[in-house]
């Protein structure tokens, strides 16, 4: 019986560790984000979320997702947010979608081999929702950084665009993919 008690203790310990590592928030708590007020001295950045490329590829889109594509393709129009010290592209996106109650799902930095957060879907439009080469990309001041959004630290006045691509970035002007060896098109 001693062994059983030990095993029971072990199981309780594991459960306690798991519970300790999870954070449960109610829906209101999650969306209740504090947005700093913009003052003349504060550093700011701009963020836009768009999915116009889907409008050109509506045939490839799953039928049940039609209602989530805005008619003009703009999910979040260009908005200004205060830049806190050390904010990355992901921090700004996270704050913006919470403040505007836009659905977003991401894969944490520890869960993939890139060591950066990966955005799986915004506003119920997921990777692969509009063809096998579709997904979310971001550019800062018109350029596509070829690395994860939680590694890009922002500076004052930069403007972020989150864009949905249906063709691995080619349809939104990402050039770096074309330079990969042997993949030229």
């Amino acid at each position, binding site marked *: 019986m001693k062994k059983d008690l030990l*095993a029971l203790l072990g199981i309780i310990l594991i459960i306690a560790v798991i519970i300790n590592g999870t954070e449960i*928030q109610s829906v209101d708590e999650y969306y209740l984000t504090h947005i700093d007020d913009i003052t003349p001295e504060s550093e700011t950045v701009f963020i836009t979320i768009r999915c116009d490329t889907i409008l050109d590829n509506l045939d490839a889109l799953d039928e049940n997702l039609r209602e989530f594509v805005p008619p003009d393709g703009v999910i979040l129009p260009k908005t200004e947010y205060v830049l806190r010290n050390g904010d990355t592209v992901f921090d700004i996106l996270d704050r913006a979608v919470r403040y505007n109650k836009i659905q977003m*799902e991401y894969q944490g930095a520890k869960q993939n081999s890139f060591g950066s957060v990966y955005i799986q879907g915004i506003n119920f439009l997921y990777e692969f929702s509009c063809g096998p080469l579709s997904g979310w990309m971001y550019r800062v001041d018109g350029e596509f950084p070829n690395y994860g959004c939680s590694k890009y630290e922002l500076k004052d006045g930069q403007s972020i665009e989150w864009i949905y691509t249906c063709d691995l970035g080619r349809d939104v002007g990402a050039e770096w993919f074309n330079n990969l060896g042997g993949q030229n098109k």
Partner: protein
Amino acid sequence: MKAFSDYHPLVLLVYFLSVLVAAMFVNNPVIGLLALLGGILFCIMLSKRSEAAGNIGFYAPLFFMVAITNPLFSHNGVTPLFFLNGNPVTVEAFAYGAAIAVMVIGVMMWCKCYSAVMTSDKFLYLFGKAVPKLSLVLSMALRFIPMFKRQTHKVSRAQKSMGLYSSKSFIDKIKSSMRVFMAMLSWSLENSIETSASMKARGYGLKGRTNFSLFRFYPRDGVLLSVCAVLLGVTVAGIITGDTAFYYYPRISELTFTPLAVAVYAAFGIMSFLPFMIEVKEALKWKYYISKI
């Protein structure tokens, strides 16, 4: 009494394949539930009463495990209940998890019935001539789990009767079952080699070899086969036209009740309850004849 298993193996194979494929690949809750109910009823007819409690004890926790695991990994859906580490846990994910669980358990039930009805000799009768090696491997693989279970039971009973592992401690029980499992691994490897050697020694796969059991294709087999074909045709038509299409993400779509969709539900319902109805009919007939004596 196994009235359904008296049908020709070809008919049985076509029947099981069409039910299994429809249950696995049609993403519609009505189809899933019908398959599950039909499978459970047929299983009840085939198995002993004493097994029922053990089965419920196994399948009910399995259902909840599958249904609860899905929302932890899938965060899509328009109705969040709460947020777990910054990701939403949604009603849609729970619904999809439940649907997957219904599908998995339904398919398991049908596979259970399949292994009870389609014995190895029937399988070899169908494919032994055309693809002898593949059919032997397949039939051995299909009967592996039930055989493994039976043998494990035997070994553990033998060990207990020798007075080993009689301790009530949970850890000791796990230890003893590990030991039995090790013995079973080597036994099953040896057994499969022995089986194939024995089949070879009996001239399996050679020309002119006859089958252990002979089956004749009676008119009633033709009737059941054509009924199956018609019902499967209706089901496939509904899938192709998209009348039975159903989505869980991001918003649960409403069930469609167009004439074709209703026809598909009815056709699949009949198909799924067919073996149960045949069993019940035969049982009633038997009772009736007995009462006449």
